[in-house]
């Protein structure tokens, strides 16, 4: 009943805004914004009217814009960072379509990360949002010389790394599974390769990525902490180009070009690591396998001026083997078909059909016996997303999203065991949403909306119901029948008040609900982690976040300072009992525990956006805690990723036309861990005594990386660059693990051993383009 009231009151609000504007005679100017050289659509380009400071819009995910204006003569100003600003005079006496093509700036002094562009505040109220442009991060030093989206976002305040060299990340105290990672709208269930050292995103195939830290607009949903929306390049529709990179442990190549000049294009991109070549060279490890590969492909086809189709796909696989004894392989497959339709000059529709699949296989061979473990999660997803450019001050976005999840938990088979074929569980996740961007005055913008998410358990499996950990009853749902349905309204609002041209303040509230949960038996992500949907015991996870922010610019907008504070309350968080065997137990729900969480913090970010020196300094002070029934005597405890202080400094300096240098410095408080508070001997072994969970700290983590990039003369066709980087310049031995063990020379003494992963990691990469 409550959600009905929510929806109703929002509809009511919308009506109020429409009435006063309806009287005016307006015309519509609409069209697309593209890159002149490549034809790539430009996302979030600002289209505004010089004569009407109050009028403006940003282009959507497909470069489309639409503006309603009264009759008159105008100068339309189109701008996008990295591009020359375009000014075009128009005479508006009827509705018209105008497409803009922007020229890239000659000297590319690009901004690495940009949360707001000039005049950005004009049109959106978003908070906690950062966009990363892939071509711009190429000079940021990274481990193994492989530029990596997920490692770069970890340098932003509020985003924390899951560990040394790891692509996993935590946002504002959330878990690694609470990030919605989308690749062309398709959810990616395991975004890492090679035990987390690489992300699944091949930077050559990616256009840009936006991370929204909990205040996402209502078209997004399904995860508590953040949305990482990654968009693949569309491909050059003007000319063929080949890009590639040769590094120490991986190489990649991509090819793109027009299918029909100006209209359609494609891109194909592949990557393969060859770390195992080094293993092969050693006598000891020559039987081992360790590699991954991935392939990105995308094509678009313009049917006519009003219809365009995009097809994109990703396929990636990791292979890991230890002699003939043991092997594990895992990977994601995603596919997206999208149909853009301009229904009218005010109404834009995108329909998407999305497929996503993640699975892993473990093979164990032991002499004559063998043993396999498989697990799989599969999604089929239909989405319709409408953008209605109602009038000069209201832009509505509404639509629905329907996902059929098929989740098959770890299934075991082999010669020596009873092959238990666990039934896959189905779940139907539906959502409808409505959001309005309302520009109340030139100073005040409000984004508000609601998402109604629903998750229905579906038949095919037995659902057990536990009360206080004891089996109470079981429900067998027949195939194609529905069980319990969870319905959760998710209201969201963000407001932006512009005090003057340089300074604005923001405030927001958002509720996010998560219906899929990751059961992980380790702290960092592992390919064998299992996803599970809601059930009769597992309720949807809920996060409520309030945040306030302040943004100011100085020195002709060259410096930007952002401060944001947040408080987040989490419900229905999941953990499991001590000693639980979550993979082999017949019903994993029998070993789960539930509780709540809270996280709060302050994030400061100072960016320098233009000039020879660009970069940023970020600082976060935060607290993250959990309280789970049955853990730590039901008291609050620090979440593992609770790191009080977190600093990152990123600087890129262009020495001259050929050389540029860059550096990264990070510092953070050590993870919250549990050290022993005593020891004892039991049956000849030293065992340790523990008190409260995560009361102790790992040593503080800090590191400096450095890189230098040399670009050869840019001739017309061939263009090459060398990147030299050194990870961990001063060789700090950061603690990856602290362990306690008997001293081999004196077994009555306890040794405390610190294990460090990397001391120095140098790398060289050659990039080419022709």
């Amino acid at each position, binding site marked *: 009943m409550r959600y009905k009231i929510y929806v109703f009151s929002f509809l009511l609000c919308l009506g109020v805004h429409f009435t006063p504007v309806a009287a005016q005679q307006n015309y519509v100017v609409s069209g697309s914004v593209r890159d002149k050289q490549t034809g790539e659509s430009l996302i979030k380009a600002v289209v505004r009217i010089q004569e009407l400071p109050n009028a403006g819009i940003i282009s959507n995910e497909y470069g489309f814009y639409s503006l309603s204006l009264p009759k008159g003569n105008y100068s339309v100003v189109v701008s996008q960072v990295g591009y020359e600003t375009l000014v075009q005079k128009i005479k508006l006496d009827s509705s018209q379509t105008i497409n803009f093509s922007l020229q890239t700036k000659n000297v590319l002094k690009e901004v690495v990360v940009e949360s707001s562009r000039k005049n950005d505040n004009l049109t959106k109220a978003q908070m906690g949002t950062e966009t990363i442009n892939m071509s711009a991060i190429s000079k940021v030093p990274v481990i193994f010389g492989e530029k990596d989206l997920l490692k770069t976002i970890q340098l932003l305040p509020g985003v924390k790394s899951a*560990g040394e060299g790891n692509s996993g990340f935590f946002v504002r105290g959330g878990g690694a599974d609470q990030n919605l990672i989308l690749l062309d709208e398709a959810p990616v269930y395991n975004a890492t390769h090679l*035990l987390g050292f690489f992300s699944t995103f091949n930077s050559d195939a990616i256009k840009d990525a936006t991370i929204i830290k909990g205040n996402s607009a209502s078209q997004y949903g399904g995860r508590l902490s953040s949305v990482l929306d990654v968009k693949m390049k569309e491909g050059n529709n003007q000319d063929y180009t080949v890009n590639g990179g040769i590094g120490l442990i991986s190489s990649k190549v991509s090819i793109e070009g027009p299918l029909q000049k100006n209209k359609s294009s494609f891109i194909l991109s592949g990557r393969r690591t060859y770390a195992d070549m080094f*293993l092969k060279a050693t006598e*000891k490890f020559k*039987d081992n396998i*360790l590699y991954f590969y991935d392939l990105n492909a995308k094509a678009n086809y313009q049917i006519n001026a009003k219809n365009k189709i995009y097809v994109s796909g990703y396929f990636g696989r990791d292979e*890991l083997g*230890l*002699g*003939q*004894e*043991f092997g594990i392989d895992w990977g994601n497959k995603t596919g997206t078909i999208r149909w853009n339709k301009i229904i009218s000059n005010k109404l834009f529709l995108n329909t998407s059909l999305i497929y996503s699949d993640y699975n892993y296989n473990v093979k164990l061979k*032991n*002499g004559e*016996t063998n043993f396999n473990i498989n697990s799989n999660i599969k999604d089929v997803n239909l989405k319709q997303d409408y953008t209605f450019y109602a009038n000069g001050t209201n832009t509505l976005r509404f639509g629905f999203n329907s996902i059929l999840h098929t989740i098959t938990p770890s299934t075991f088979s082999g*010669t*020596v*065991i*009873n092959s*238990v074929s666990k039934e896959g569980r189905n779940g139907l996740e539906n959502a409808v949403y409505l959001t309005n961007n309302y520009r109340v005055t030139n100073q005040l913008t409000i984004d508000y909306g609601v998402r109604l998410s629903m998750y229905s358990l579906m038949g095919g499996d037995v659902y057990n119901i536990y009360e206080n950990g004891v089996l109470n009853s079981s429900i067998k749902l027949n195939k194609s029948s529905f069980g319990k349905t969870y319905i959760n309204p998710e209201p969201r609002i963000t407001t932006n008040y512009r005090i003057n041209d340089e300074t604005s303040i923001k405030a927001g509230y958002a509720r996010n609900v998560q219906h899929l949960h990751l059961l992980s*038996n*380790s*702290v960092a992500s*592992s390919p064998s982690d299992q996803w599970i949907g809601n059930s009769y015991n597992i309720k949807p996870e809920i996060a409520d976040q309030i945040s306030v922010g302040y943004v100011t610019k100085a020195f002709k907008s060259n410096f930007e300072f952002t401060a944001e504070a947040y408080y987040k309350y989490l419900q229905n968080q999941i953990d499991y*009992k*001590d*000693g639980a*065997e*979550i993979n*082999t*137990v017949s019903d994993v729900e029998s070993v789960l525990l539930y509780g709540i969480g809270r996280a709060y913090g302050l994030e400061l970010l100072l960016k320098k956006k233009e000039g020879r020196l660009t970069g940023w300094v970020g600082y976060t002070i935060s607290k993250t805690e959990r309280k789970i029934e049955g853990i730590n005597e039901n008291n609050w405890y620090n979440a593992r990723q609770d790191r009080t202080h977190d600093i990152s400094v990123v600087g890129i300096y262009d020495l001259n036309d050929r050389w540029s240098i860059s550096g990264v410095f990070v510092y953070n408080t050590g993870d919250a*861990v*549990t*050290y*022993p*508070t*005593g*020891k*004892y*001997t*039991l049956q000849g072994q030293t*065992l*340790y*005594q*523990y008190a409260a969970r995560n009361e102790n700290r790992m040593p503080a983590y800090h590191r400096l990386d450095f890189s230098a990039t040399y670009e050869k003369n840019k001739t017309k066709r061939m263009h090459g660059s060398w990147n030299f980087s050194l990870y961990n310049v001063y060789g700090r*031995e950061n603690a*990856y*693990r*602290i*362990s306690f063990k008997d001293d081999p020379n004196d077994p*009555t*003494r306890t*040794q*405390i*051993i*610190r294990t*460090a*992963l*990397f*001391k120095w990691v140098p790398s060289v990469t050659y990039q080419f383009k022709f």
Partner: protein
Amino acid sequence: MKKIILLFSLFATTLVGCDKEITLELDDSQPKLVIDGSITDQAGPYFVQLSMSTSVNNPTRINGVNNARVIITDQAGVKDSLQLVSNGLYRTQKIKGVEGGTYNLEVLVDQKKYTASASMPQKVNLDSLRINTFPFNGEIRYSVIPVYSDPIMLGNSYRFIQKINDTLDLTFHVFNDNLNNGKVNQRPLRGGDDNLKIKPRDNVFVEMQCISNTSYTYYYSLNLQSGAGPGGGTAPSNPPSNIEGGALGIFSAHTVQRKTVTIR
């Protein structure tokens, strides 16, 4: 699943920069009572070891508790007051362990009472020890498979104590029948670390215990924690056990069978 964690840490070690001994400030909590007792199907006497835990920086040794009153009763009404041998080790006088029997332990120290109850499972016969060989990183490795037929009923747990030429393997080897219920076991006992490799001509001694599910969880938790740290292992805590009253340790009733095999 432990295997995967093991493999990961193996790959991680190939990348590892270094291990170094460090010192840490540890807040040593109050010492706690540790109870380690067992009743088996072998002839008595049986023993209960009582000790106090100590600071991590102190030498590791058994700090025996000698002022306790220790009583074990069985379902037949036999009440056995245990006698102190030395350094916190108490010995039963008359109680007899049998398959299927239930035993209650009561320990009184400084007016504090600790209790535990354990039931001995039915014995599953250890038929033989089989030698398993497999290639690993260019060499032949050996492991021992305890051969037994798991009963039809689900819920059997086993513990294996392995000694290689009289050196105790420090891994807690515990198996259950979640996956191979009713089958002949073919799962080998893996050596805990590279220092205790099994080589040709070694004598491998195996003691098989049929244990309760509570004991299984106790030892399994200890195993999970041995891999603690990012990339594997869980947040460590005192393992769940059957002892009530706030003491550490375990009270177990289990069957015992022993066999030795020579690698050739």
